[in-house]
């Protein structure tokens, strides 16, 4: 990373009694970077965000913001601001008073506060709504006001705790783009917590995937989607087919797995794999090719199977194919490619070996 570092999280651990929530997290976030902490609920992402904000204290490790160690500082002494999940607007204050609160605490004169509040209202597209009370706002407007309030004191880092999770899908998609635009316009550093992988892909410069209190993978959305570092990452980001079996052989990085039912599949090994060990292959549905044909005609790269289901998804069609051993595989095709494909039809499936990743372990294993 060439940009100067805005937030440096070093060896952060968090335990509640005997229960460890975070295990040695190391993460550096650059200035002007939009980083998402992505993971299933209970993975520790919100705890990590709250440690950066100062609401939780790390059991071990440190947090530095622009080089200054803030590990021991209370929230009101940190150059961070948090956008809460449900906004947490002060119900007894108007929108303008909410936004101006931090500036009033800093002793700004009234006229200057009013000017800054207007500027922020304009930024979040709430022009003219400053006089409203929080109960007179819609869900989306509440989050806009909460964003403006958190941006008012020009924090070094803006922290966002699933701020869009309470909104409906259309509004959420719209707000994602808008948040991204605001972040670009301000050149601010955002750390965004979410459990929604689409949200993370749409908005982030980099995504940090967390699972069970650990960082699983950190990378750009493209890196994470195309080169997931683990079974968990490949399953959590986007959709994928997972096939577990034992390693029958490795040849020039291409692994052949055999399922308990005798199905042979091929993919590229991400780490060295021992013959006979259990491993899992992941292949994205859009990488799977499909042609009509008899299993007798199959090339070594292909699997014969029967179409179990055809699901129309609008822009694409998902074909579910049952292999002879019972394994179900998805293939996503464009509508035009699916002419003549019907349930019960015998087909051949295949994918380039480098489009599928293979990791040691089985689907249920962590990491």
């Amino acid at each position, binding site marked *: 990373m060439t940009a100067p570092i805005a937030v440096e999280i070093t060896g952060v651990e968090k335990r509640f009694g005997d229960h460890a929530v975070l295990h040695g997290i190391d993460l550096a976030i650059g200035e002007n970077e939009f980083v998402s902490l992505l993971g299933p609920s209970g993975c520790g992402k919100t705890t990590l965000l709250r440690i950066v904000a100062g609401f939780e204290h790390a059991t071990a490790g440190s947090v530095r913001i622009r080089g200054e160690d803030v590990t021991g500082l209370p*929230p009101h002494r940190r150059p961070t*601001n948090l956008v809460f999940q449900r906004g*947490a*607007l*002060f119900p*007894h204050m108007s929108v303008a008073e909410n936004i101006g*609160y931090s500036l009033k605490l800093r002793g700004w004169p009234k006229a200057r506060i009013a000017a800054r509040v207007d500027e922020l209202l304009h930024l979040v597209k709430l022009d003219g709504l400053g006089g409203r009370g929080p109960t007179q706002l819609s869900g989306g407007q509440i989050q806009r006001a909460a964003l403006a*309030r958190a941006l008012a004191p020009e924090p070094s880092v803006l922290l966002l705790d699933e701020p869009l999770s309470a909104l409906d899908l259309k509004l959420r998609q719209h707000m994602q783009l808008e948040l991204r635009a605001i972040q670009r316009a301000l050149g601010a550093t955002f750390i965004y917590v979410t459990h929604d992988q689409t949200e993370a892909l749409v908005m982030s410069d980099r995504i940090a995937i967390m699972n069970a209190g650990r960082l699983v993978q950190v990378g750009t959305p493209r890196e994470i989607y195309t080169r997931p570092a683990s079974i968990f990452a490949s399953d959590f980001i986007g959709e994928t087919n997972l096939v577990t079996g034992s390693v029958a052989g490795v040849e020039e990085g291409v692994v052949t797995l055999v399922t308990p039912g005798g199905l042979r599949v091929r993919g590229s090994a991400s780490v060295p794999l021992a013959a006979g060990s259990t491993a899992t292959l992941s292949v994205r549905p859009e990488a799977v090719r499909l042609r009509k044909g008899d299993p007798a005609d199959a090339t070594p790269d292909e699997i014969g199977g029967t179409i179990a289901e055809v699901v129309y998804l609008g822009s694409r069609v998902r074909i579910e194919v049952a292999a002879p051993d019972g394994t179900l595989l998805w293939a996503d095709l464009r509508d035009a490619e699916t002419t003549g494909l019907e349930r019960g039809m015998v087909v051949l499936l295949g994918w380039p070996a480098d489009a599928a990743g293979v990791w040691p372990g089985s689907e249920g294993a962590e990491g």
Partner: protein
Amino acid sequence: MRPARDDAGSAGGSRAGRIVAALFVAVVLLYLFAPVVVTVLFSLTTSPRLSLPIEGLTLDWYREAFANPIFTIALTNSLLLAAITALVSVGLGVPFAFGLLRLRGRTRGTLVTASLLPAAVPALVLGIALAVFFSGIGVAQGLPNAAIGHILVALPFVILTLNARLETFDLSCLEAARDLGASPWQTFRDITFPLIRPSVLGAALLAAALSLDEFVVTWFNVGNQQTLPVLIWGLLRRGIDPTVNALATVVLLSLTGLVLGAALIARRRA
């Protein structure tokens, strides 16, 4: 609406049946309100006895009651006790209810129940227990003892109402204030206090109302001091005097005012 009325008709039965039902409701309401109406009515009639028909209306009994120096002393004492009870029980109840808010699950439930149980202790037991306790430690009866008793009576109700209202309190508002740069004190001044003010005021009015008409615990602990209920009880021992009706009406009106005030504040908050 029409089908509903038809249903009611078939369920309510005949016309005679409905008249009986209406009469029943009227009798129950009469039973509930007659004592109040009689008291207020006879505090305003010229006749010194409870007699009908009413001969004339007068405010003489109020004049007489207010002219009595004992009445002024009793009223002052009652108001003083009500004020102290409101202040202290709210002062203890607010931090307690806030503490409960931060607890979870069973601990919280246990503490709520524990703080409410004393409300189930009969006033008679409470009054005697306090009297025995104070005499045991050698404290003479008097207003301070009564005040301690009143707080004991009011506190469970104060905790109950505050706890119920604070359950909807969004603690993340307080975190938001801290996050925006407010110190713990500034957070209390700017956010916590303005948000809980209506609940606290309502609880204080409730405590004052409970104190104002408390008789049993007061009687065992107040010694030779007077409060309004104690004075009325003393006057009644010398026979029904219309000034008693006047005094009772004063207590009734103050209590109604307090309870209505508490209800209005609660509604405005909602």
